[in-house]
Every structure is written in structure tokens, then in C-alpha cells.
């Protein structure tokens, strides 16, 4: 099994190599990067390209590691015991499988996405060390050991909100998706909008990278925001000339609300444009 990129996702060579290393050595791949650089998309793309089922586990601040393995539904068992249901004799009927168990029990290899692991409690990654390393865990209720039939391909994404423990990091491959340069961005846009006018793309990219260079922006616009913005430009049928600032006037790019998501950023930007117009 080898991942060679796919038609609708532009993967750089270093990313491809990291993914292949994770697939070959069957170890988790930890992906970090600015929001909107396609971390979650990566797992979906790899699963689709390899033709494997994708199991997603989205982490919230209240998520416990145990929930990824299994949960014991005590309430339904108590209820059934009142109704005299026969199922109640077997505790196994009340164990709800989590994402990891589903993947371990699957007949074919699977892809697991553990999304935004940094959102959980600080001890969360430590609680998954053995599960991700040996790909097995023990079910106390039924006294059985669940072992993976096929080691799943695990993708873990993080937004850097919390640092992850060393012991956890040592068990993963790591890749940082850096912000795409102009060439890569061009190919990303080509993939998403094959028919887009070249002139519009060039002007839009120009504006976009200038916008990213403004110092002091709270949230820099990312790839996914650029794609949204292009979608809007196309939908509104804005000509490429509208993005240009020929007559020495600094133009506010149309529909810039799609790129700047923070009120302070919009203010800062408008102020800069205003200043630039007056001191030219």
C-alpha cells in the first residue's frame, strides 16, 4: 500500500513520504499546521485513495480516552433487568464499541482519524499510549483482550492548543503542514476550480499573499478561506480588474469578509488601506 497523492488533494513530497512511512511502519502520523491547511482532509483523501473505510473520532474538551475504546451502558442493563429481558444475562450486550474497537475488529485494514487531539484534557494522549503502540486493550467488564486484526492507519491532528507529552510523540511520525507557497497554491486552486480564468487567479493570489503579509493580523487567512473567497468571486462574477489597483489607489478587495474573520482584523486592514491612500 502506498499513497501517491490524489486528484483533488495536493500533497507535497515530504507529506507523501511521511504518510507512506506511517503506512509502512503502521505507526500513527501526527499532523500539525495552521487551521485550514487540510489536516482533516488528508485522512479522508488517504482513505479514499487506498480504498479503505475511514473511522472518525472528533475530540472535544470532555472526551475521555475510554470513549474511543468502549462504554458500558449500565442504564439499559438495569432497565432490561426490570423488564425481565434475557439479554441482561450477558454483560457483553451492554458494551458499546468505540471508534478504536471498531477499527481493531474490522475485517480489513481501516484508516482512523483522531481529530484535534489537543482539545482534550492534558492527560488524554497518555491514556492512549498502549492502545496506539500495541494496538490492543483490555475490557474489564467481559475480561477479554481486544487485539487489532489489522493495524489501522492512524492520523492524528493537532492545532497546538496544548503541548503533547513526549512519550506520546515518540510513538508517532510527525509532519507539519507548512503554508503552501505560490506554486503549490496555484496547483491547489487548479484542483478545486479547473475552469477558473488565469487572470483572476493571478490577481486573487497576489491580493491573498499581500493580505497574509500584513503584520499584526490576529488570524491570517488560510487555504480553505482562499478557496471560499474564490468561490464567492466566481459566483459574483467579479472581473480580474476589480482586484487590481492600477491608478495608485489602494483597493479594498471585494468580498474581503471571506478572508478576514476577525472584527479587529477587518478594522486594522481598513485603517491600513485608509492610511495608504492618504500618504501615497
Amino acid at each position: 500500500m502506498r499513497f501517491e497523492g490524489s486528484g483533488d488533494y495536493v500533497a507535497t513530497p515530504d507529506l507523501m513520504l511521511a504518510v507512506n512511512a506511517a503506512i509502512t511502519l503502521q505507526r500513527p502520523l501526527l499532523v500539525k499546521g495552521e487551521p485550514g491547511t487540510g489536516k482533516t482532509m488528508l485522512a479522508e483523501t488517504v482513505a479514499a485513495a487506498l480504498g479503505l473505510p475511514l473511522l472518525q473520532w472528533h475530540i472535544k474538551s470532555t472526551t475521555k480516552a475510554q470513549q474511543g475504546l468502549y462504554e458500558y451502558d449500565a442504564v439499559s442493563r438495569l432497565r432490561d433487568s426490570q423488564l425481565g429481558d434475557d439479554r441482561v444475562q450477558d454483560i457483553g450486550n451492554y458494551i458499546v464499541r468505540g471508534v478504536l474497537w471498531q477499527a481493531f475488529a474490522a475485517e480489513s485494514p481501516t484508516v482512523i482519524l483522531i481529530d484535534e487531539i489537543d482539545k482534550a484534557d492534558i492527560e488524554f494522549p497518555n491514556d492512549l499510549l498502549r492502545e496506539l503502540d500495541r494496538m490492543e486493550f483490555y475490557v474489564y467488564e467481559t475480561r477479554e483482550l481486544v487485539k487489532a486484526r489489522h493495524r489501522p492507519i492512524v492520523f492524528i491532528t493537532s492545532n497546538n492548543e496544548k503541548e503533547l507529552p513526549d512519550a506520546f510523540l515518540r510513538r508517532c511520525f510527525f509532519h507539519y503542514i507548512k503554508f503552501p507557497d505560490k506554486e503549490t497554491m496555484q496547483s491547489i486552486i487548479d484542483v478545486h476550480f479547473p475552469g477558473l480564468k488565469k487572470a483572476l487567479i493571478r490577481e486573487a493570489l497576489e491580493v491573498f499573499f499581500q493580505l497574509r503579509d500584513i503584520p499584526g493580523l490576529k488570524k491570517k487567512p488560510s487555504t480553505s478561506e482562499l478557496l471560499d473567497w474564490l468561490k464567492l468571486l466566481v459566483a459574483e462574477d467579479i472581473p480580474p480588474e476589480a482586484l487590481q489597483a492600477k491608478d495608485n489607489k489602494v483597493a479594498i478587495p471585494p468580498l474581503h469578509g471571506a478572508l478576514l474573520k476577525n472584527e479587529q482584523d477587518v478594522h486594522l486592514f481598513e485603517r491600513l488601506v485608509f492610511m495608504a491612500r492618504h500618504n501615497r
Partner: protein
Amino acid sequence: MLIDFFHHLKASRLPVSTKEFLTLLEALQKHVAGHSIDEFYYLSRACLVKDESNYDKFDRAFGEYFRGVEKLPGLAAEIPEDWLRLLAKKHLTPEEKAKLQSLGWDKLMEEFRKRLQEQKKRHAGGSKWIGTGGSSPFGAHGYHPEGIRIGPESAGNRTAVKVWENREFRNLDDKIELGTRNIKVALRRLRRFAREGASEELDLDGTISATAKNAGWLDLMMRPERHNRVKVLLFLDIGGSMDDHIRVCEELFSAARSEFKHLEYFYFHNCVYDHVWRDNRRRHSERLPLWDVLHKYGPDYKLILVGDATMSPYEILQPGGSVEYMNEEPGATWMRRLLDAYPHAAWLNPEPERLWPYRQSIGILHSLMAGRMFPLTLDGLERAMRLLSK
């Protein structure tokens, strides 16, 4: 294999571990990477570096180590003279080119070859993975001659050299907050779990005993979820001599912000007087009387003061001693009021502990705090948290 490389990384202060190194070897054994140095670079980075703030360090270390190896593959006798000539032309620096003209080709070639041989000896251990090791230096695996490089001018389009010598991650190196995890782990000692608020969680033990009491009829018992109940008042000294400690204070602050749900923070300058403030930019317009703070937050709050306690003793002991304004009562009085209101208190001092005896003001505050002053290090933080959680 590659043990020197591993040690070189270690010596460059990269946090690499043996397990990660073994992973790299395993990956090489399974031919994850092809035989180009680019791919080896990407692979070793994915295996060994786990934080993008270390990417730059890794790039530098990799560059240092492989500066020799790139021009390694068995360059001894069989190279045709004109290849070398071509190479040298392509990769020599202007100075060397000038020297070349004055020395003449043959002598220079001699030196060139000698240098290559030296390189070979020094890095022989790493030769396996690059190339054939056979007859042709640039042969079977498509290793491009442009990888062989002497001057800093690189002709390569996408050679490995370019990739790591770009040092694209340079600005990531210091931007990311380092070490907050350790601080958070230390602050965890202050966790005090309690069940408060709405009942949302099933109380299994309670349900079983209630059901039993109910003669077998199901009686569900719910209970509130566990929350960290500890409440913290954080007083931060800001400005002046504290500017040297901004980084560690920021780390502490960001760790505390995310660790405690009930955290109230205030700023003061040098010593606590009758006013504190919440926003340092508006410190003169939006001041809070300390009395209000004392009345608003009950004694169950734990008090943590952060400051270097370095000032003139008058600023603590004399009325009107403050450097900022005319204070009617001395700082010591306000400190005592604070400590009376909050019996659980600690002072964290970013100044190294060994300097404390030489500063009179630290001594005064140390005794005002009844010895509860700790250095702002992990160890000091742990001691302070242990004291506060008693």
C-alpha cells in the same frame, strides 16, 4: 549505521530518543524512502522531530552533518577528467574560480580530489544509503551530480541541499510557547475536584443501592459532574524590573488561564498598594480599589503573587514610598491585609533563589509572607502548589 548522525543530532540539542532512531532504521530497512538524500531528509525529519519549533534546529544539524556526505559516493579514480572539470566549474565560488585561474587546472584538481577523499574517510559509515557504492559515482539511483557541491552557490533546482538550507522554519523556532506543558502539569497539583451544579452524570453506586432499597424497582440516581473547584487569585507584578522575566510570566499565565476555571488576575507594580488593575494598557484609568477585591472574593480563593520583589525597602515600609504615586499607607500594610484575607497564599519569584539574600526588599517580603516565597522554577512551582493544596 548512522549512529554518528544520531549523536550529532543529540549534540545539537535536539530531543531525539533511541526509540525514534530505531524507527528511522526500521523505515529505512523497509525502503520507505528511495535512495535520494531529499527523501532521507524528509523521512528522518518525520521520524525524529516531533515539534515544528525544532525543524530549524534539525535543518541546521542535518546540513552540518551531510555537508560532507553529499559529495561522498566513492569519488576516487574513475571520474573522467572532464566531468570533474565541469563540476568544478559549476560549483566553485568566484574566489576559487579566481584561484583556479592563477593555479592552473591540474593543481586544483589535485586538491579537489584530495578533499573528496578526506570527506570519504570521515563519513564512510553513512555511505550505504546514498548510492551504489559501486563503479559509477552518480549512477544507478539517479543521484544527481548537482548534489555534489562545494561552494554555497547551488545550481540544484530541487536538491536536498536547497530544502534544508532554506531554513523555512526559522521563525517558528522561538514563537511557539515552550514548556507550558510542564507548568500545567505542576499546576495540576492544585486541582481540587468537587461535584457542583446540575446533576448530569449517572451515579451507578447510588442507583444500585437506591434500586435495592426500592425492592428491585429501578431508581435512577444522578449526580453533578466533577469539576476542578479550586479558585485562584493571581497578582502579577508588571513593568520595570519584571521586563526581564516576561517570557516565563507569560508561560505561567497562559498555563494558569487554561488550567483553572475560576481564575481572577490583577496587575500591580513592585508592591501591592490600594489599587490594582486588570488591563495594563488602561492601568491609570481603570483601577480597582484593593478593598473591593478583598471584599468581592472570599477566603476560599488561593492567592498567588508573582513578582521579583526587587525594589527599595521604602516602597514596602514607608507611606508615600511608591514610585508611582503618593500612597497613604505603606505596602506592608496592604500585604498584611491581603494575607489576612487569604490564608492560602504563596509568592512566586522569578529571580534565582541564590540572589535572594542579597536583596533587602526580598528579605522583607519573604518574612511578610512568612517564608512562603518560592522561585519561579518547576521545582519551586511544585513546592508552592503543594503548600497551597494543603
